[in-house]
């Protein structure tokens, strides 16, 4: 049944939505503003919101003190690498679950999802030991693998939801047309699922970029991504809010920009299959 809210209610809902949106965004805004303050202004009470002496000193110092671009590059390698590797594993997995399901498919999917509910710290020690013995500690290869594995359930679930929307007859037609499994996935399924694969790719790049637990625990200096770069600003000598904020802003800026430009794609990806 159609339900049209009145003008007053519409205004009220809009206000509530904007307030919630602002509250969620506030910490990021605070961080960005603080990054342009001096250390003294950053801890001043009451804090000044906009009227302070804007300075870029923090950014200059952060860049001088630590190699931002090396961390940035590591973040790129880890997020893009783990997502691409994840897709290579997940596309065939989601294909088989969507088009040749067995009695256990649902259970496997639920089991995969349940691994996301496990506190990562529970498996930190075994994974740390495996990494140590395999010589993977503080290597990009190791991080790509571990970040891929922790996001794999989400990648498979998202692709599975997409693939299920693709009529099976089209894949059968490909089989009748002489396509083997590889050609079927490569030439028919994947191009048809491009919107779904793109949203999965974007979401996983963001998740991998923001991943802090494993990247902090399994790296030292060489392969540390931006999360470790931010963490390095909370030092025993005390917190330097302005510099920490500048480092954080530099770390989140790329992913924020990526998210902004791809928001339409992301929203579509996350709500796909909800309404037919």
């Amino acid at each position, binding site marked *: 049944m159609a339900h049209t809210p009145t003008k007053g209610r519409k205004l009220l809902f809009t206000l509530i939505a904007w307030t919630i949106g602002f509250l969620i965004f506030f910490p990021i805004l605070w961080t960005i503003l603080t990054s342009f303050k001096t250390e003294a202004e950053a801890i001043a009470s009451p804090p000044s919101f906009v009227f302070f002496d804007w300075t870029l000193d923090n950014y200059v110092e952060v860049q001088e003190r630590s190699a931002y671009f090396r961390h940035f590059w590591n973040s790129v390698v880890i997020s893009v690498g783990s997502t691409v590797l994840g897709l290579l594993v997940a596309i065939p997995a989601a294909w088989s679950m969507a088009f040749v399901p067995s009695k256990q498919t649902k259970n496997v999917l639920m089991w995969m999802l349940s691994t996301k509910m496990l506190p990562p710290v529970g498996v930190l020690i075994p994974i740390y030991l495996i990494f140590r013995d395999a010589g993977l500690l503080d290597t990009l290869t190791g991080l790509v693998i571990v970040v891929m594995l922790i996001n794999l359930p989400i990648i498979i679930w998202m692709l599975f939801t997409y693939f299920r929307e693709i009529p099976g*007859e*089209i894949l*059968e037609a490909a*089989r*009748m*047309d002489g396509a*083997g499994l590889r050609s079927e996935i490569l*030439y028919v399924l994947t191009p*048809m699922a*491009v919107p779904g694969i793109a949203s999965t790719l974007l979401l996983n790049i963001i998740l991998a970029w923001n991943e802090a637990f494993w990247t902090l625990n399994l790296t030292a200096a060489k392969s540390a991504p931006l999360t470790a770069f931010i963490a390095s600003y909370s030092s025993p000598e005390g917190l330097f809010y302005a510099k920490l904020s500048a480092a954080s802003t530099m770390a989140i800026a790329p992913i924020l920009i990526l998210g902004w430009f791809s928001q339409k794609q992301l929203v579509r990806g996350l709500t796909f299959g909800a309404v037919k």
Partner: protein
Amino acid sequence: MGHISLNQITKTFGNVQVIPPLDLEIEDGEFIVFVGPSGCGKSTLLRLIAGLEDVTSGEIKIDGRDATETPPAKRGLAMVFQSYALYPHMSVRKNIAFPLKMAGFDKAEIDRKIDDAARVLNLTDYLDRRPGQLSGGQRQRVAIGRAIVREPAAFLFDEPLSNLDAALRVNMRLEISELHNKLETTMIYVTHDQVEAMTMADRIVVLRAGIIEQVGTPLELYSKPRNLFVAGFIGSPKMNFIEGAVAERRDAAKVGIRPEHMQLSLEEGRWEGTVSVSEHLGSDTFLHVETERAGMLTARADGEFPVRHGDRVFLTPQDDKIHRFDAEGMALS
């Protein structure tokens, strides 16, 4: 070549046997139609031949070679689906080229074959469009184009016309028949529409619950149905069945007479009755007549037969066209 033989094939889904042991020989170049009501297993049978489903037991031979375990891609058959199943992200040209690309043809050969197919199917002007920009009939033609370029051993059609409107269906029916005459390739065609079956087939296979009830030419099925099911399924409007005294007098449990095999008169005849409904189609008039001796009967008259609801009419069956059936529903000679 396109000789297909099914030997004792069965198909079971879970605990349900949808195809009990079944034998069938399909000759090279034949147009064979599988017909039957929904759920009779006709599509499953086609999918078994295609290789899209695995047989539970039995053997499928294509041109003498055992193809039971061969994947669909390697059976050398082409299929046209009910939903067309075109690749939505490819142009018409690429859709038709796809099987050729999979078969490893070179580009010049592919282009030549596409142009030929497009000419035969009137698709030349649409080659650069996507399937989404085509009408139902055009999409179906693309699906057929994609099937013919491979020059398969046989074509499999799975209710290809059921998504089209009535007028287009008649046109496409003719086009497919013409195509068969031109290509002389084996065609296996699944439909639930007995008119399609009668008009297109060299031979019809009537199926019920996975069992072949009868195989024969359209006219054989029409004039010599093996049992009540085939008698009732083939022919439109369907055959009238009469029990009781009328059947007993002919030493049968049931007799059948087709609507077109009864003489209609306003003055005299064997069975007197009242018209309950008259359907005037222009070329024919179908009368539903309530008779005292034979129950409700459907009869076919001329288009201009002057009767209306409530009129008295007389029906006289042609004795040599009466079909007799025993208590098990099998035809008596």
